[in-house]
């Protein structure tokens, strides 16, 4: 553990924070199963990953009154690429090495925690997690910190993975009962994929799930692959007591010769028992990936009718350009359909998995592949609207060129690839058919924003030129926009004092919008 004395928290506003918490009993993770109304308690808002709000104060009919309520500037260059959490009137927002507690009514900074300078990757950060009166922050050098939610004091600091070996973390932990479940990244070294659960109170390790063989164990199934990092927050079904998380690409990344076969459990959705870390089932969306396509995208949990039968489903728009519907009780495939331009698969196998075309594996003279490394989609969260049955996702029709030759070796990237061009769209996928109900252009290049839908029929997201946009979920028509800069991830929404707020990070600022009073 690190000495808590290294904390650099700014004390301004601590009194205000204590006042807020005087009435709070701390956060019981049982609340994470409820749809978000007057809080946004987890990265996804709740356990389901739907990012759908039941709130209806802001509607198609009153968007002309939607206006900025406040703005909070971090004062630092890195963009906010995470989702804030809201706990009883306090917002927690992160960038690498930083966590701010903000009064959700006034945007006043209550405290600011800064992690000491470290030499790990500072690529982005997804957000904080809460349990009781702890706030958890992962760090670029793959530590997990527990901070006092009231004043930002460091309570404990544990190492999740050894950053000197090439691990780093951007992860917003998933909290289930007393388990704080933390993933890491690491693509430039051949490292086992690992997900660690620690005790919410003490930081003691409870279990580690390895998606590829742990160090020192004989390789039984992965075919020699390492990797499969679980760098995104998973989802959870309390009734089945199963958590779902997507695993990343195998390493070596572009050299597939060094790791023959499907390379489980890389490029997969895995269902784990959160009390033991035991694998209950796994499903590979990208068997034998050679294009850096994670299956780390959000596994969205949806209950509904499929082919006339009530099903507990799991939906994923995966980085490889294919959309999947699985039965989440057992991993049975119900549907696979492309949602972006794809040219790398020869068809689907009997389990609905795309069959990689060997001709599209990286070659010495290059192959043109769709999608490119940025993917058909990426970390930016989609949203599921139960009313229409649409999964709304930031998608890219992109092309890249991929190279590998034996001289590139079998360590880390082991090849070279270059994005050539791409066009991005917000796409609404009908989960019952896989058909694209509408496709709304959002600019050239990869990316754009995460997505939020509301029960009043609104889709809230951003485009590549930097507009926050509100669209009609049923047909994708733009109804409202505000040029605030590139939106980092999905907006959140909640009721506070009878007023519905939409809060979103763009560049180095957090913005709140609400109806004019």
């Amino acid at each position: 553990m690190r000495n808590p004395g290294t904390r650099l928290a700014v004390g301004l506003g601590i009194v205000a924070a204590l006042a807020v918490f005087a009435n709070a009993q701390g956060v019981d993770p049982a609340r994470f199963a409820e749809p978000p109304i007057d809080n946004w308690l987890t990265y996804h808002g709740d356990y389901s990953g739907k990012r759908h709000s039941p709130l209806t104060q802001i509607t198609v009919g009153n968007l002309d009154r939607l206006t900025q309520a406040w703005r909070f500037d971090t004062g630092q260059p890195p963009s906010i690429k995470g989702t804030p959490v809201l706990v009883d009137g306090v917002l927690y927002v992160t960038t690498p090495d930083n966590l701010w507690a903000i009064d959700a009514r006034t945007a006043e900074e209550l405290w600011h925690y800064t992690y000491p300078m470290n030499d790990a990757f500072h690529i982005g950060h997804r957000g904080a997690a809460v349990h009781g009166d702890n706030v958890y922050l992962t760090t670029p050098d793959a530590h997990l910190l527990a901070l006092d939610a009231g004043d930002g004091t460091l309570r404990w600091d544990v190492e999740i993975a050894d950053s000197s070996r090439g691990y780093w973390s951007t992860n917003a932990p998933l909290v289930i009962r007393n388990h704080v479940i933390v993933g890491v990244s690491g693509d430039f070294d051949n490292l086992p994929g690992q997900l660690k659960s620690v005790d919410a109170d003490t930081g003691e390790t409870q279990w580690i799930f390895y998606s590829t063989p742990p160090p020192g164990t004989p390789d039984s199934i992965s075919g020699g692959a390492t990797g499969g990092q679980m760098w995104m927050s998973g989802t959870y079904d309390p009734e089945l007591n199963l958590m779902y998380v997507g695993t990343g690409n195998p390493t070596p990344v572009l050299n597939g010769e060094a790791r023959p076969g499907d390379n489980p459990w890389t490029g997969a959705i895995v269902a784990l028992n959160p009390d033991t870390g035991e694998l209950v089932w796994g499903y590979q969306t990208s068997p034998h990936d050679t294009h850096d396509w994670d299956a780390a995208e959000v596994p969205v949990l949806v209950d509904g009718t499929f082919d006339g039968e009530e099903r507990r489903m799991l939906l994923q728009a995966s980085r490889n350009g294919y959309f999947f519907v699985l039965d989440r009780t057992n991993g049975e495939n119900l549907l696979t359909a492309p949602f972006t331009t794809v040219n790398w698969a020869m068809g689907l196998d009997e389990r609905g998995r795309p069959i990689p075309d060997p001709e599209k594996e990286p070659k010495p003279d290059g192959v043109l592949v769709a999608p490119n490394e940025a993917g058909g989609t990426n970390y930016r969260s989609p949203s599921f609207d139960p009313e229409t049955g649409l999964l709304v996702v930031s998608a890219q029709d992109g092309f890249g060129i991929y190279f590998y030759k034996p001289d590139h070796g079998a360590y880390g990237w082991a090849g070279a690839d270059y994005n050539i061009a791409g066009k991005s769209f917000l796409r609404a996928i009908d989960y019952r058919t896989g058909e694209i109900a509408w496709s709304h252009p959002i600019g050239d290049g990869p990316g754009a924003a995460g997505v939020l839908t509301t029960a009043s029929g609104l889709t809230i997201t951003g485009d590549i030129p930097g507009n926050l946009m509100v669209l009609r979920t049923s047909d994708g028509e733009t109804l409202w926009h505000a040029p605030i800069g590139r939106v980092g991830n999905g907006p959140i929404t909640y009721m506070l004092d009878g007023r519905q707020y939409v809060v979103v990070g763009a560049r180095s600022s957090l913005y709140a919008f609400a109806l004019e009073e």
Partner: protein
Amino acid sequence: MKTSILTSIAIVLIVGGATAGGAPQRGRSPAAEQPPPTVTPQEYPARLVEAGEPRFAARCGFCHGRDAGGGEGGPDLTRSELVAEDTYGDRIRDLLRSGRVAGDMHAFDLGDEEFTLIVAFIHDRKTQAELAMGGRRFVEADDLRTGDASAGQRYFNGAGGCAQCHSETGDLAGIASRFEGLALLRRMLYPAFGRPAPAPATVTVTLPTGETLIGELASQDEFTIALIDSDGASHSWSTNEVEFTVDDPMATHFDLLGAYTDDDMHNLYAYLETLR
């Protein structure tokens, strides 16, 4: 130890001289493999380079690779024109201040000390790349020479439709002398990646009065369209106030990406390589 780029260039010249009379080393043209040479020789003490390595990895490594040789989305800095033209961080500083809007690189606010260390490391890596022949993760021009130039010429004039906009005696005359290897391939596939398009889009705007303006497309999103007219004046409108059509030569390049077979791509590249 001091790392001297001046010394490095001298060594490269000696190596080049030794092979100039015979077959190029390992059967490829050294000119095609060499990164763009550093314009202004600079020296960095080894202690700066060593201290810069972890700082580079932390700040830049995710996109540019820990060795600056290219990584997730970011180019190989040892082959960067900007780094070649940089003198003690002058060009790099400007880029870090502004970021690169088109390339999805945000601005970095680095302290002077960290900035100096990172610049030292980048230049050291570039020096090493200038010394090394074919280090890992490089795409050699020879690797790309698998196509059939005559089939590429047929594709150029036929199925590819390239001849509708380009000609081997016009805009593409000598193209393979100006761009080589991977740079030529990428420019062939999509010339506007990370740089202004060589042939900008034009836009025709019809105002509510019926007046028509034609100019170079300056910017476009769902809500605003802007052009620069022939006098260099800028104009912009809300997209819901005017009628407009955009003619973007890059659109044809994008459409071709979905149409090429890999053989088409390699054949067309082989044909362009003959245009010296």
